[in-house]
């Protein structure tokens, strides 16, 4: 392997990144860094923008490594970690050598980092499976807003595609400024700028249901066991903003 001083650029997608890494490893190149198209280079950077062949890239990597390894790699790709591309590069490089043993090699710094990040993404996705709140709009579409740190909308949409398969729904990720639209068959993830919603006004019935839920939430806590520390531990404040039942507490605190 030859260490270079160049920064390599890929086209923002997971497959494009995997293709670039394949190219780099094939040519025995250790990049200084890997960045996506949004990267604004400084004067000192050497930028390389190679032509990338993406055909059958998923099959290539699954056969060279394993499904579990590629899945982990995808989770890392979704994270907001600024070094994620390089972490993926070294994780895959080592995976070629160690195969599934890689999951136990926490003494290697790059593996340890990779597994930690992938775990964070899985963890956040799981939280949003529970904490996402829909409301029913006048056109009977279910609408939710979330603000995750990592780009979990794709995995989350898969979850709701199975669960709410006979409903129309929209989930808006206000952090990453993207939306997921579900039409009872598939979901489509689009840029916020390419989509305009006339109104997000809810139905009258919706208001009654929301009141029932808030009512239930307040009732179900046992006063004698009140434990803010424990609640904060499982449900940190950063999630409260989009959780209907917490709206009163946010007001009370501010």
């Amino acid at each position: 392997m030859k260490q270079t001083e160049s920064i390599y650029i890929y086209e923002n997608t997971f497959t494009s990144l995997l293709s670039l890494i394949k190219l780099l490893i094939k040519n025995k190149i250790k990049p200084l860094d890997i960045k996506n198209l949004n990267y604004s280079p400084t004067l000192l950077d050497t930028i390389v923008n190679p032509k990338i062949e993406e055909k059958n890239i998923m099959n290539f990597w699954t056969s060279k490594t394993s499904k579990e390894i590629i899945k982990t790699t995808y989770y890392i790709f979704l994270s907001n970690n600024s070094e994620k591309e390089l972490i993926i590069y070294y994780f895959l490089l080592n995976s070629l050598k160690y195969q599934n043993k890689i999951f136990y090699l926490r003494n290697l710094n790059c593996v340890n980092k990779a597994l930690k990040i992938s775990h964070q993404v899985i963890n956040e996705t799981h939280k949003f499976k529970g904490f996402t709140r829909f409301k029913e709009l006048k056109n009977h579409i279910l609408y939710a807003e979330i603000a995750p740190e990592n780009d979990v909308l794709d995995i989350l949409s898969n979850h709701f595609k199975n669960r709410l398969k006979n409903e129309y729904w929209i989930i808006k990720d206000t952090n990453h400024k993207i939306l997921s639209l579900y039409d009872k068959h598939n979901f489509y993830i689009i840029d916020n700028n390419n989509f305009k919603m006339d109104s997000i006004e809810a139905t009258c019935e919706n208001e009654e249901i929301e009141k029932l839920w808030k009512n239930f939430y307040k009732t179900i806590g046992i006063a004698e066991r009140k434990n803010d520390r424990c609640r904060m531990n499982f449900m940190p404040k950063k999630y409260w903003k989009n959780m209907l039942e917490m709206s009163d507490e946010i007001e009370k605190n501010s």
Partner: protein
Amino acid sequence: MNIQEKLKILADSAKYDASCSSSGSIRKSKDGIGNTAYSGICHSFASDGRCISLLKILLTNCCIFDCKYCLNRKSNTIKRAIFTPEEIAKITINFYKRNYIEGLFLSSGIIKSPDYTMNLLIKTMELLRHKYHFGGYIHAKAIPGASAASLKKLGSLVDKLSANIELPTESGLKLLAPNKETSKVTKIMQYVKDNKNISYVPAGQSTQMIIGATKETDKDIISKSEYLYHKYQLKRVFYSAYIPVNKDKLLPSLMVPPLKRENRLYQADWLLRYYGFKTQDLLDNNNPNFNILIDPKSDFALRHLNEFPKEINTCSYKELLKIPGIGIKSAKRIVSSRKIFTLQFKDLKNMGVVLKRAKYFITCNHKYFINPEYFEKKFIESNLVLEDKEHINNTNKQLSLFE
């Protein structure tokens, strides 16, 4: 009475039940709405820090029984309410659709007779499963005294079916719940155990005991749990710290619910189910109650210090499980990793081992974390207690920032 008030009354009456778990079932979504997640999903956390996964309500808080500890006992003058099956089904679907909940947990006071109540529960479940094609999680409480026919029907509609044993001894039950008999509850458990399969109560059964209302020791309680796990293959036993909702000369006048004791019982319960411990490893007639200052696993290790420190790189999986601070996941990771390389303390940290506790009881590559002279009971014990206290103090400090 409007629906808001009904929900308030019937959620308030249901909140003392500890179980809210939605795990252990794989129900794929079909034509209707909903599926289940094997791991379970928490949708919110209540002001007491407990997970909210299911819509936990009673069908009615009317009851022909007069159990001393229960808010809904016949002799209490409280507001009574009853949901219709249709009302419950509608709220469940509407909550589920908005992703507030993972499903329904329905229990009930006994109205008219056990089977009359069972039929109302069955009707609700039939509406949900057949009219609304609901594929989410349902946990139902079976009513003591229910017929085999109604148990058969209800169990085929739900994911989890359970009956509460309430108190660990027959004498305790006689004292506080004169209308209940342990045999009526165990009859339900036996029936569910004999019939459990993929379409009958797929997530299994659980039960609950009230802690601190009667004089039973932790040993009585944990022995009872061990017996129940063994005899009826229960998924879980829940422990609920007694909260005085009623005044009665037979009841203790506790001001604070015994939460720490409840916590120790849960820790011991996990040791029974997953770590290969037996009741007699943890408690005996000289020590019939858990140490409030130290968790049961550390307490066990301190009493068997001659078996420690254990060498992480060579001791068996079973031995790893006996080490405080090492859980199932980290024990498995250790076993797989040490085949490839020799583990050091920092590797353990990366694997998720709680070194704060584990470090006193292990060596890594024959090295103790400090001078091995310190490996003695008094030193370890006082440090474990101290670190717990520091933890509590620190978190209290952090909390005050918000106020």
